[in-house]
């Protein structure tokens, strides 16, 4: 298992909602817990992953995610079991959309 932590400043969008979870910790999948948090405006993402050694890819995926949503005062926690970047991005977007009440 590997743990990765990211912190992004300069977001603007706050999500004033109860915590949400999307996804399941099954093979090739992940669960994403998204919560409001007092972080001085920052967005913190903590990843616990079974796939070891993919730091740079996680970094790039998280940066693109933050660029899409510009979240502030948000904590995202991930339990990952080997999902590809495509699935990671999908779940992250689903998590935010659920907070925004946009899920189909």
């Amino acid at each position, binding site marked *: *298992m590997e743990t990765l932590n990211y912190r992004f400043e300069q977001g603007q969008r706050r999500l004033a909602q109860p*915590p949400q*979870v999307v996804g*399941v*910790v*099954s093979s090739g*999948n992940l*669960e994403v*817990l998204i*919560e409001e948090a007092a972080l001085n405006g920052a967005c913190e993402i903590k990843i*616990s*992953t*079974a796939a070891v050694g993919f730091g740079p890819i996680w970094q790039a995926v998280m940066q693109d995610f933050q660029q899409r949503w510009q979240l502030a005062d948000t904590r995202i*926690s991930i*339990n*990952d*079991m080997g999902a590809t970047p495509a699935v990671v991005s999908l779940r992250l977007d689903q998590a935010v959309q659920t907070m925004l009440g946009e899920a189909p």
Partner: protein
Amino acid sequence: MSHAVSYLESNARERLRLLFDAGSFEEFLPPAARVISPHLGQLNAPVAFDDGVAVGRARLNGMPVYTAAQEGGFMGGAVGEVHGAKLVGLLRRAVRDQAKAVVLLVESGGVRLHEANAGLIAVSEVMRALLDTRAAGIPVIVLVGGSNGAFGGMGIVSRCANVVVMSEEGRLAMSGPEVIETANGVEEFDSRDRALVWRTTGGKHRYLMGDCQRIVKDDVAAFRQAAIDAINALTRPSAPSVPLTLEALEQEQAMLAERIARFGALPDPLDVWAAQGMAQPQRVPMLEIEPFIAAAQTVRMGA
């Protein structure tokens, strides 16, 4: 809902969201509480924030019910220490709060072997807690329709409930197919013969054998309605006893003895269904649910 939502394809939280009255599910120990397994980290295995089971209360057609839904995707829904404790706590709280009923959405391979004794103890505590809940007069309904089925200790837990509702896609058993093949040989049971596995442990056979009392199509709305009907049926005056009674146990024993006497020597469920008097047993697996229920009416056990 305008179209069927597959219970099989939905995950635990989706089932909870769609089965109970809209927006009524209120979770105890939600993922944000991070009550996770104390064991898996040491084994370098991933954890789930809810340890693979969501528990809480909800309304079912206005009735206050307590509920748990196991996530089959996480470790096959297997029961570890925390997962089991959540189920036990839920069952005890249902008694304390005098819930109208408990609805368990079971999808599990049984004991989480990774957690060894803690898992074993957890499952046995769930059995005891379920029977205590029944003893307090609160009906327990189990729904089995996920791809992992209800096996091992959770198969036993399911049969401790008042009513088991299954879809034909669901499976209910104790030993898993691979275990039977390993122990008794492929001639006895070929675990790769999926048609045989479902013939033996799937909802239709269980319904015919009296191990499940209601069978529905793979649709969350159908499971919802069956749970409502089952609870209503148990609160009628002429209903069977909610607490386990000696009489009920003796009836169950008689049914089991009859099953062995009538079917024990037969090699395949197709032979069993033929012996039961099902017309065209080979067509049973392809029948849609309504015609199947109609055909089973006069011949199924435990009716």
